């Protein structure tokens, strides 16, 4: 029988998704703080982008090649590269979204058993991915094009064509992502139960991205400090940009259309690319989808595990610690947001230190490496410790099973705190060693930095665990993953950042104040006294916060929203 698209069922599937997406609003579980924070962050990023991109646009379109101005040519190059970057980002996120929604989504287990054709199912999933990509395209393309319209001469057709670009970019990205989803799925399926390899791959990828980021920061720093901006775009660089723009398909075709160049050829080329990609991706993904549906129903794993005997007997506390480690290590999203982040945090600290140290020396003429190191350690440590705000919620309904086991409440709670502390200590130690090895701080200061970092980490872990204990949010699915626990995660990260800025800012200001008066050496001890007092007092407060009433709360525990 031919598998026709059933538009009535398609509508039902889309409505089901809309209801799921808006269920938090209806149930009153809406994370208002997180939403406002995300909105503010996006708004701030767009504002920064618009300001800098506008200035850059003025400078770039004024560059002469062969002693002649060619603003339209420069605009074409710039738009091609910007759309190219947006397209790459959309394709990468599209690949991830296709894999998640087609192969990892739990609703497929139910949908697979319903009388819904594969074409209808595929189309419903692709439409949803397209809509989310459309939102990203609007947030990135609109500020870019509006800035261009304000700073450069554009035709009247530029505005409607901007809307077309917003619609077209996600369409192309979904088509390309569908093709790339095949090899990506093969790789992730192969790595699925190879947890160690998974960890290494994810950590290396994150570290590589960080190195790229650090390189860009270094370039920006050189440009800012050396006033070399106008000399950067020399003949050689301009030639490379020109060549890149000429080959960055299909982004350059969109730039062509927007600027009214080679309209017919560019439009036909885009239509051709779309048709080919759609056809290839449709057949490729449909084939994959059928396999996915079958494996969802059977629920079997192809991975063959090496038989193992019984492990050495452990105390209940160690058993809990081991269980906690396995839960995080074997859940890719947890592993990334905790272990991989904890490993790359020292790199972040180091990269920012390398930029911040010389910038501080240049701008305020004060050697404030230790103060800056404390600030960065606390700031990025918060990023890793944010994961602890799901210490209880992560357990889900199994928390009730733990309650039924002969475990002291301290074993249950402290095992979670202990694992977090091991990870925090390793991460802080790597940061301190890296900064000492690269000469930013002395060995003694590195030891002090480590102690302060661990104490603040301990404070955050204790507070995050208790807040989550008081207000847990369990997944309604067995083994369901939790990315954030309501407002707890947002609150923990906001308070961590505020704490880092409060202490780091206080230390830097104190240092500056005494340096300007030539008393930096005499009052150097203040950095140690202030941070040590701050760290010890906050750690003591956090322990009290964690422990007071914990036993009674554990017995009375009945939260989570799922039972």
């Amino acid at each position, binding site marked *: 029988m031919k598998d026709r698209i059933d538009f009535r069922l398609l509508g039902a599937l889309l409505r089901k998704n809309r209801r799921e997406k808006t269920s938090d609003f209806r149930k009153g579980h809406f994370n208002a703080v997180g939403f406002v924070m995300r909105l503010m962050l996006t708004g701030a990023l767009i504002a920064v982008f618009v300001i800098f991109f506008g200035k850059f646009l003025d400078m770039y379109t004024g560059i002469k090649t062969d002693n002649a101005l060619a603003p339209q040519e420069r605009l074409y190059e710039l738009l091609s590269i910007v759309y190219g970057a947006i397209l790459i980002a959309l394709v990468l996120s599209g690949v991830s979204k296709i894999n998640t929604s087609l192969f990892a989504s739990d609703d497929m287990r139910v949908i697979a058993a319903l009388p819904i054709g594969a074409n209808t199912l595929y189309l419903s999933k692709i439409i949803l991915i397209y809509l989310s990509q459309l939102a990203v395209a609007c947030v990135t393309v609109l500020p870019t094009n509006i800035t261009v319209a304000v700073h450069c001469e554009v035709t009247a057709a530029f505005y409607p064509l901007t809307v077309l670009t917003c619609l077209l970019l996600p369409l192309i990205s979904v088509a390309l992502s569908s093709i790339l989803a095949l090899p990506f799925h093969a790789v992730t399926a192969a790595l699925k139960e190879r947890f160690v390899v998974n960890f290494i791959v994810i950590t290396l990828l994150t570290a590589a991205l960080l190195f790229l980021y650090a390189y860009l920061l270094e370039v920006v720093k050189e440009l800012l400090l050396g006033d070399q901006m106008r000399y950067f775009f020399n003949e050689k660089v301009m030639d490379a940009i020109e060549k890149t723009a000429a080959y960055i398909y299909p982004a350059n075709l969109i730039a062509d259309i927007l600027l009214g160049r080679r309209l017919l050829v560019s439009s036909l080329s885009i239509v051709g690319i779309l048709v080919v990609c759609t056809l290839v991706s449709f057949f490729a993904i449909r084939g994959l989808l059928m396999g996915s549906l079958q494996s969802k129903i059977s629920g079997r794993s192809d991975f063959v595990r090496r038989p193992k005997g019984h492990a050495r*007997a452990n105390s209940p506390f160690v058993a809990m610690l081991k269980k906690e480690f396995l839960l995080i290590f074997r859940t890719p999203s947890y592993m990334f947001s905790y272990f991989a982040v904890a490993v790359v945090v020292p790199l972040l600290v180091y990269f920012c230190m390398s930029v911040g140290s010389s910038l501080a020396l240049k701008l305020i003429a004060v050697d404030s490496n230790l103060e800056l190191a404390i600030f960065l350690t606390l700031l990025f440590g918060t990023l890793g410790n944010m994961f602890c705000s799901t210490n209880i919620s992560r357990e889900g309904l199994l928390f009730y099973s733990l309650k039924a086991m002969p475990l002291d409440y301290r074993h249950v709670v402290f095992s979670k705190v202990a694992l977090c502390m091991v990870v925090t200590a390793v991460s802080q130690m790597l940061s301190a060693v890296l900064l000492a090895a690269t000469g930013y701080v002395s060995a003694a200061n590195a030891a002090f930095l480590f102690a302060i970092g661990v104490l603040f980490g301990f404070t955050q872990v204790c507070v995050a665990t208790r807040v989550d204990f008081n207000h847990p949010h369990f997944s309604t699915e067995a083994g369901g993953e939790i990315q954030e626990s309501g407002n707890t995660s947002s609150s923990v990260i906001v308070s961590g950042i505020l704490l880092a800025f409060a202490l780091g800012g206080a230390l830097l200001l104190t240092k500056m104040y005494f340096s300007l008066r030539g008393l930096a050496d005499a009052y150097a001890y203040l950095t140690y006294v202030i941070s040590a007092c701050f760290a010890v007092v906050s750690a003591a407060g956090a322990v009290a916060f964690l422990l007071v009433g914990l036993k009674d709360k554990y017995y009375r525990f009945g939260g989570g929203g799922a039972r």
Partner: protein
Amino acid sequence: MAENNMPVAENVVTVNGLWKKYSKRADYAVQDVSFKVNAGEIVGILGHNGAGKSTTLKCLEGMLPFDKGNISICGYDIVAEPVKAKANMGFVTDDHAVFVKMTGIEYIDFMSDVYKVPQAIRQTRVDQLEKVFCLGDSIQNLISSYSHGMRQKICMMGSLIHSPKLWILDEPMTGLDPRTMRAVQDYMKYYASIGNAILFSSHALNTVAKICDRVVLIRKGKRVDELVMSEFADRADFDFEEYFLSNEGQD
């Protein structure tokens, strides 16, 4: 070891005047429920959906706090001495909640650690349970790859690894194949025959009628009746299903 913890006790479980109310509900989920389970007995809790069976069992297991009443397991009060009370029981929840990121063998080791089962006897215990539950090589796989029935089996194995004096099962037959269902029933009878107590809830009336010594009937959170099954064993006119359904209808 759990089996050595028991003080002088004929009654393995004593539930006395149990009241439980959920915070967002106006009425009590469990109202003044009392019953006992003796060593060597299999006791079934029967009732319609939402009658309060699972809530009673969860209070008994220490999962949920309760408002009034006393619960003691092997002489240990579940509130005053929770760790000692829980060390004497093994439980299987109705949702077969289990750590899916562990392999079967890792889960068994985890439960053995938590219940302090000596290393020397772990393999013997697993071999004994394996004969009943037949997980085979799947015990080496991640539990996330298990079917519904296999998860149920690993839950049961984990709950028995320390040979508890009290075995609590909430809807134990759900999802099991007929062969395993029979094996579990036989094992329940054997387990009770060696001096342990079993308390379980079920909707499978045939199973309840076949293996239970006593049945506690719960309706709308209240204990409405208690049957000693041996009293009806020789009565040809007694139909357990009819009895249950007619009792359900009384309001």
